[in-house]
């Protein structure tokens, strides 16, 4: 089935916007996606019609809001095919989800000299939390490298694993290269050694159908705002056995069972990890976004975005001096590139004046830039509402900009 892009674009009012008197071409979707009206409507309706603090409230509104929040949890469960709803923990985003695991898993499961394996293509959000853990537990990071095309060298994983390895934390799709990593294979290798796997799904969830049970991952994190949902809400999925085993991340209301000044016992899953008033409006709007994606069909979206990626790669490659950063066979959602010796900042600034929003810089993945010995790239990242015509505008824009810089 093909999807009706014109109809989809109608759902996203911001796409009608003009910037600098040019129609907006939005290719910064890996940073954040635009929101369909149904998501914004849910937020508005939530505050106008269904706002009360959730759980423990005896009154009507509180129960209604609680039901909406817990229904959202079920929507997320179904969307990523988790076994139980209580394996879904709402967080502020992918970053907080990874920090939660780094802290709670780290302090409970790691001792000094233990090792965590990550990859060379991680976003800083899957590097820095582990470095913070190092101030509490003297752990070591081992790195799975990628090759010159940006393909993860999974065949090196076995040699990095030893009896001190406690966790393997990898991104599903690289935000800087677009590379899609073979998570199932990584999980299989890890589990052969009884090592759990955490997946940063920030860049995969909007583009690929996610089945955490089929992937057989132990933790999976993603952000709402990258999948057409609101900012400030995200998800940590954890297998029940792991979420039971690791301690709470933050303390406060909601997450407790009983508190005395001597001792506190903790609430059951998932509430043990949701200290304080949860963002129940955000969770509900995220569920609306996931329903919106499901109605269009994630497979249909994936196919459309794959076509965009293929078309963009072909068109961009015809530009003089084009150099792609990240040429893996298996890519998803984005293209990173440089043109001649034009600095990404310069190119991005001119594209902006042409109404084209791209991201430039190191994309919070400095080790990736170091590997290619570059300062940054220009990144065009796609969403379901992007079109081939917009890619043509991008290509023309780059050609126009390149003329300004040619020496």
């Amino acid at each position, binding site marked *: 089935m093909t999807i009706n892009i014109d109809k989809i674009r109608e759902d996203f009012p911001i796409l009608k916007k003009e910037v*600098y008197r040019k129609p907006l071409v939005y290719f910064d979707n890996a940073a954040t996606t635009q929101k369909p009206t149904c998501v914004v409507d849910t937020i508005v309706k939530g505050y106008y019609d269904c706002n009360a603090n959730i759980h423990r409230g005896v009154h009507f509104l509180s129960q209604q809001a609680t039901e909406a929040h817990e229904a959202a949890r079920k929507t997320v469960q179904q969307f990523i095919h988790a076994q139980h709803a209580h394996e879904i923990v709402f967080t502020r985003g992918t970053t907080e989800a990874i920090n939660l695991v780094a802290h709670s898993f780290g302090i409970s499961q790691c001792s000094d000299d233990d090792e965590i394996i990550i990859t060379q293509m991680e976003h800083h959000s899957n590097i820095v939390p582990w470095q913070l853990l190092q101030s509490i537990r003297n752990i070591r990071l081992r790195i799975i490298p990628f090759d010159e095309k940006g393909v993860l060298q999974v065949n090196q994983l076995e040699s990095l694993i030893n009896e001190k390895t406690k966790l393997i934390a990898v991104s599903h799709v690289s935000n800087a290269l677009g590379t899609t990593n073979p998570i199932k294979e990584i999980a299989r290798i890890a589990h052969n050694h009884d090592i759990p796997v955490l997946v940063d799904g920030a860049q995969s969830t909007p583009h690929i159908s996610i089945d955490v049970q089929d992937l057989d991952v132990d933790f999976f994190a993603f952000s709402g705002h990258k999948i057409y949902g609101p900012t400030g809400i995200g998800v940590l999925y954890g297998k029940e056995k792991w979420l039971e085993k690791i301690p709470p991340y933050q303390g406060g209301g909601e997450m407790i069972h009983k508190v005395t000044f001597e001792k506190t016992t903790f609430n059951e899953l998932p509430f043990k990890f949701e200290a304080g008033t949860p963002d129940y409006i955000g969770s509900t709007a995220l569920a609306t976004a996931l329903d919106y994606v499901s109605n269009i069909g994630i497979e249909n979206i994936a196919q459309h975005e794959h076509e965009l990626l293929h078309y963009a790669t072909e068109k961009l490659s015809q530009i003089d001096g084009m150099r792609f950063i990240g040429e893996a066979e298996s890519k998803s959602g984005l293209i990173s590139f440089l043109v001649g010796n*034009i*600095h*990404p*900042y*310069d190119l991005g*600034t*001119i594209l902006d*004046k*042409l109404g084209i929003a791209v991201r*430039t*810089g190191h994309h919070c993945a400095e080790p990736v830039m170091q590997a290619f010995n570059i*300062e*940054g790239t220009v990144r065009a990242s796609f969403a379901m509402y992007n079109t081939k015509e917009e890619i043509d505008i991008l290509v023309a824009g780059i050609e*126009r900009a390149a003329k*300004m*810089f040619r*020496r």
Partner: protein
Amino acid sequence: MTIEEKQDQIISEFEFLEDWLDKYQLIIDKGMSNKGIDEEYKTEEYLIEGCQSKVWVHAEYKNGFVFYQGESNTDIAGGIVSMLVDILTAHTPTEILDADLYFIDRIGLKEHLSPTRSNGMLAMVKQMRMYALAFKSQYED
């Protein structure tokens, strides 16, 4: 020429350019005709780090006047630093510290002054004023 006269001259160059791309082309061209900075000053010590562009600025004090050099690894920030160098060079520290850099607003670059913009123009102006202040306190007070 005074700092004001130099600014007015730059404003007149930009005045008739309506298209954003033409304005940027002029900025880029200014960067390309810039003499740049002596290699010995292209070091961490003289680096003003914006988020994405690197800009190096150095200043010398001679006979009561400040002489700047500046360069960037990006053409746009390079053009901006080159204009600032032209405008502020060969003036006294007091003139530099008192200067109102209104050309930034008038040629439409005000948005680049925002701290969130990534070319670090604000940081450039700040650093150039710091040089003037340092010379003033070192040689004139």
